[in-house]
């Protein structure tokens, strides 16, 4: 009984009030520190925008452009008819489509490889594999996702490219096809894991309804689960493309860093990201046209991936809301 009285007394005592104040103060400080950590991620985005937009602005308004014979930089940059990207040469041209042709072609090849395999793996893991099998097999994909991209570049250059050339010796050792195939292999884990998540979010009643009508697992997967998970699966493909478009080291190693405007998969490649690597390897002067041009190229890449990511996240949100 006396314990309770003491307790009641201590709660109202000055000492306890001071303790409570100290505790509230500490809680406030901790909240501020954690908020700073959370807000710092916004600063990263601001930093990226500042650098990309700022340096690109300097590039497009650089007076040196007139000196190298480019009167209208926008006409040159967005030249869709006869683009040339000759930043490191004497006569300079900045047709971004030159780099984009490599970027889009290697990404397309990557999708041709990754979509069938990634989707099949996702359907298999989500609809056919029992949980213990799924848990046993998924680490294979996670390990594949853990291979550094420069090592994938080595693989493209020293395994896939010789394999392609064994069919036809005239094909150059550096080509878009081998880079694209290996980018495809690298994005299989991304596509399969997002697509699998989308399919597993489909409620079981829909499957049970389908089974009750006499459908097999495959019937159910293709006619019920795939349409129901459609937005999530498209999101998987879009986020896969976004990754392929930004992939750097595979192309830098296996593409040969040749900025050619071409839609031939057997030519050498210099994607936007690989070009940035190429320029960084040389001695570039801060503030020169070469230096600023990689930010203009990088801004183009950032806008493309940002658009793809926004569409992808929107689609993922959509299926999460539906179920």
């Amino acid at each position, binding site marked *: 009984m006396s314990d309770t009285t003491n307790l009641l007394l201590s709660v109202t005592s000055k000492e306890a009030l001071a303790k409570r104040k100290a505790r509230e103060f500490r809680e406030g400080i901790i909240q501020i520190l*954690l908020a700073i950590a959370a807000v710092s991620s916004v600063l990263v985005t601001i930093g990226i925008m500042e650098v990309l937009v700022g340096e690109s602005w300097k590039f497009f308004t650089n007076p040196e452009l007139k000196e190298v014979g480019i009167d209208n930089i926008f006409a040159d940059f967005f030249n869709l008819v006869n683009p040339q990207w000759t930043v490191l040469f004497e006569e300079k041209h900045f047709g971004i489509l030159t780099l984009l042709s490599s970027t889009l072609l290697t990404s397309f090849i990557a999708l041709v490889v990754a979509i069938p395999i990634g989707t099949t793996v996702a359907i*298999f893991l989500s609809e056919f594999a029992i949980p213990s099998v799924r848990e046993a097999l998924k680490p294979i994909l*996670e390990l594949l996702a853990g291979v550094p991209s420069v090592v994938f570049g080595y693989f493209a250059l020293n395994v896939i490219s010789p394999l392609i050339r064994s069919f036809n010796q005239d094909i150059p050792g550096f080509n878009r096809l081998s880079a694209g195939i290996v980018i495809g292999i690298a994005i299989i884990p991304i596509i399969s894991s997002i697509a699998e998540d989308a399919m597993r979010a489909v409620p079981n009643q829909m499957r049970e309804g389908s089974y009750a009508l006499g459908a097999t697992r495959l019937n159910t997967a293709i006619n019920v689960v795939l349409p129901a998970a459609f937005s999530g699966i498209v999101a998987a493909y879009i986020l896969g493309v976004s990754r392929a478009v930004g992939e750097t080291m595979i192309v830098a190693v296996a593409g040969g860093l040749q900025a050619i405007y071409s839609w031939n998969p057997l030519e050498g490649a210099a994607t936007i990201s690989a070009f*940035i690597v190429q320029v960084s390897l040389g001695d570039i002067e801060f503030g020169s046209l070469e230096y600023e041009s990689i930010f203009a190229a990088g801004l183009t890449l950032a806008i493309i991936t940002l658009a793809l990511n926004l569409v992808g996240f929107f689609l993922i949100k959509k299926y999460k809301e539906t179920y």
Partner: protein
Amino acid sequence: MTNEMPDLVDIQVIRRGIKSRKRMDNIFIGVGLGSLAFSLGVLLVLIGKLLVEGGKRLFGQGIAGLWNFLTSVPDSNPEVAGIKIAIIGSFCVILLTAIIAVPLGIGAGIFLEEYAGRGDLPIPFPKWMSNIIEINISNLAGVPSIIYGLLAMGLFKYQLRLGETIATAGLTLALLILPIIIVTTREAIKAVPQALREGVYAIGASRWQMIWDHILPASAGGILTGLIVGLSRAIGEAAPLVTIGALTFITFPPPFPFSPKLVGEGLHGPFDWLFSPFTVMPIQVFDWVSRPRPEFSVVNAGAAAVVLVVMTLSMNALAIYLRIYFRKRVKW
């Protein structure tokens, strides 16, 4: 179309239909396993090729050759060139990356799960602000790594004048893996049931006491897994470091704190290593694989890639193991 309808009562037709559909099921199981086998096959061929080619340098001259490769500095002679500087560089860069990214990432994750959007905060935090942070993090997670390289070059190297140093590299990789750590921290905290929070509050704990004593221990497994996955990604990244000019031919490691200076008098300060030039494992692989001589581009690049893959895959395997271990242990 024929006018004759198939006889639905004919049991043979039905059986045949069922049989063929079941066969399609089995064929698909084969295709699914085949696709997984393809992924596994690629991984095995990749590792096999690395071991066969890199093995010539790694295991060609016995254990002494392996030791020599791991502890030698770069050289123009492929048979004596080694990866000592790259290993030390990777270690220093990852150390700095972890020092920056781990507290920031976990802190941001805790804030977004346990503070943002709640009405009972000691200091109110606007809802729109937490929405912006959320959208921002999901976008940052999709930014290509080369763009972080441009950030490093434009902002850290030139505007902040940090130069081509370990400080620039560690900062860049920390920002790169920040979204990974934040997202996995949030998922781990989300998995802790609400009842635990209410129980802890009921016995008079403050918000931070609840988080520190109960939420963090309960979600430690998931958070740890995310940290390891993030750091293994940082170890393997070359693109954002190439742009700051890390591809240099360096034959001396960063100065150890308080070690005697090679040039001039006195000792190195405790933070001199942060501002010294460096190279890292993936850059070393890239440097060698880009050379024309196959002794470098195939053999030595393969040997360095073996060491790099052992680093990243063992970290990934550890993360997978931890995830399974904690999932088995924690039953909510």
